[in-house]
């Protein structure tokens, strides 16, 4: 069965079978990544545009590698090289790219809703690579894949997302995806970092990191955006680390079986101490490798969808 939608805009409302299919397919591509020649001809002749209105080198490189390993033709379009600053409207920019006969658009934008808007003005398959503080589905899928790789199953697993939930695009996607795969999801962070009504999604909220470590199997730790107005949502980075940071002492005291994920880039000494970032509990680099496999799976499933 192919995926139920021709786009991947988010994980809200995506059926569990679709998520399962993506995760299963990623296993195939994970094997390809271990080969001497890490490339298959599957998407030969497909043209994919990476439309990045917001700088995100990691996500873009991951998508680009996934595309190259599937033998697709890829073009990058980032704001620095774009015409949006020359007064061309957003719609005209997209229409222009569309006119170049492309098959898929990978889009990253600081405004929520842009991927959805693209589906209205383009015939291509649209993959959301992060829109505002809304969703970042491939990140959540690679997180789930990485967790599953270590634990075998997501069902019944207790996963806590730690950090600035309100400004995160990773949190919502993870919540939707994990819940539909049967995991128990909770959040941990200062109340100023919790968006209104988030508990309506069926998640428990912690304001105590030690309790969160103690009661969960997995922590998915979000990056604290230091560039945000300092002092508005948290008093200081130091205070955040003292009260919400993950340290070896806390792990060793409260839960030695915990699994730590982080979407990167890490602020060492803020959300994770350096020992934790390099330590035995984290699977941060596995996430990066799996990211390519997940993106290959999504590109394959959408690119060859009948």
């Amino acid at each position, binding site marked *: 069965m192919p995926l139920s939608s021709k786009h991947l805009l988010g994980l809200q409302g995506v059926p569990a079978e679709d998520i399962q299919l993506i995760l299963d397919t990623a296993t195939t591509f994970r094997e390809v990544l271990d080969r001497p020649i890490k490339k298959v001809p599957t998407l030969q002749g497909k043209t994919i545009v990476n439309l990045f209105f917001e700088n995100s080198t990691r996500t873009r490189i991951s998508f680009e590698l996934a595309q190259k390993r599937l033998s697709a033709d890829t073009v990058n379009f980032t704001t620095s090289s774009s015409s949006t600053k020359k007064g061309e409207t957003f*719609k005209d920019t997209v229409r222009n790219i569309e006119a170049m006969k492309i098959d898929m658009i990978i889009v990253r934008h*600081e*405004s*929520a*809703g842009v991927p*959805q*808007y693209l589906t209205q003005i383009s015939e291509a398959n649209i993959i959301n690579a992060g829109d505002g503080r809304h969703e970042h589905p491939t990140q959540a899928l690679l997180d789930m894949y990485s967790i599953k790789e270590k634990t075998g199953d997501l069902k019944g697993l207790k996963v806590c997302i730690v950090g600035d939930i309100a400004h995160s695009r990773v949190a919502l996607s993870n919540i939707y995806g994990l819940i539909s795969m049967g995991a128990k999801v909770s959040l941990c962070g200062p109340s100023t970092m919790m968006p*209104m009504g*988030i508990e309506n999604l069926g998640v428990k909220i912690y304001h105590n990191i030690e309790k969160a470590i103690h009661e969960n199997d997995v922590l998915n730790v979000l990056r604290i955006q230091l560039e945000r107005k300092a002092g508005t949502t948290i008093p200081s980075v130091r205070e955040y680390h003292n009260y919400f940071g993950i340290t070896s002492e806390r792990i060793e005291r409260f839960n030695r079986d915990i699994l730590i994920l982080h979407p990167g880039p890490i602020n060492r000494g803020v959300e994770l101490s350096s020992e934790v970032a390099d330590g035995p509990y984290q699977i941060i680099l596995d996430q990066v490798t799996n990211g390519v496999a997940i993106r290959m799976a999504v590109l394959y499933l959408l690119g060859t969808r009948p």
Partner: protein
Amino acid sequence: MDILLKSMNLLDPGSKVNEVADLHIKNGVIHKIGDIDSSEFDEENIFEFSGKYCVPGLFDMHVHLREPGREDKETVVTGCNSSAAGGFTGIACMPNTTPAIDSAEVVNLILQKAKDHLVDVYPVGAVSLERKGEALAPIAELVEAGAVAFSDDGVAVKTSAILRNAMEYAGMYNAPIIEHCEDPSLDDGAMNESFVSTQLGLPGIPTVAEDIIVARDILMAEYTGQRIHIAHISSKNSINLVREAKAKGIKVTAEITPHHFTLTDDSVKTYDTNYKMNPPLRSNEDVKAGIEGLKDGTIDCIASDHAPHKVEEKEREFIYAPNGITGLETQLGITLNELVHKGILSIEDVVYKLSVNPRKILNIPVPGIKVGENANLTIIDDKEIWTVDLSKTKSKSKNSPFDKRLLTGKAIAVINNKQMFCDNEFKQI
């Protein structure tokens, strides 16, 4: 010229007229009311309006005409055309133009452009120079030139000190301050803050941003004894604050837009930028409170906050799209459809909310349906079923979420300044 309007339901709460009669208008003045013999009139000057309501010309006290500065979005003339098409014979226009309405020259320019039109235009002056909230605009000079109220609309009056002085100074001329209630330290959002904004990943504007300024302004009105008018009220708490203030005898009035008593933030789920406005669409509870406020008189009037924008400005990323929608040509239809036909307000209530009250707030004489009065009238067919078609609207801009909406009731003619707009054309009468 003599024209005859046949067998209308005359409805004028001011002069307590409520009867079925014909109306003879001679050179723009109401000449005779009653059972009038048509044989003395040319056929083309007889209008069969049987079963239609004839009410004092409707008035919209919150319109953005965009001239001077953004004539590509709207001009005084196109805005007036849009008003006439929507059933309005008078409007008040907001001062957030470029330059702002903070000098007699700009007031004069607008009045000059509007002078031959059917629709009367009453400029609202800026409270502060360039609407910056730093120094008072020349309020006396603006009043003399024709400004009827003062506002920094688009933003709230920046400081309590400026607000206090503006209230006291404008109070000398009995001109109200019209407040856009939004605390600037809480306004960093693109929609209502709610579970919906959380799900959509859009930054939210909390209702408390509105409530704080409403509370401040009410306290200031109480302290100074002057008048405050709350523009486009949207939050339940703000409505409660106004209700309590009125009970205490504080001189506060309030308006609500048709979109705020019709739509909720659920509409934003499609990320359609025609649902982006400020104040943003709120929750169902707020909508209910708005309707309750209209019913019990807490909310004095309905105003469109007609805010024209170019298609290319609206057709873009949600967080970057400008706020606001056009409203002049849908306002009456939505009011009839959502309030009258649903049994919330009577037609007579609508005449108060859309004609009598806004004029009273702005100290503008309310036109009456009496022999000897200038004919300033709106003819309403409350039963006509029609579909909003933005491509046919008179406004220069087409940014409305109500396109293709089926409505019952609309204005079919307006008369003012010896002109009539009927069947999509203006004519001298």
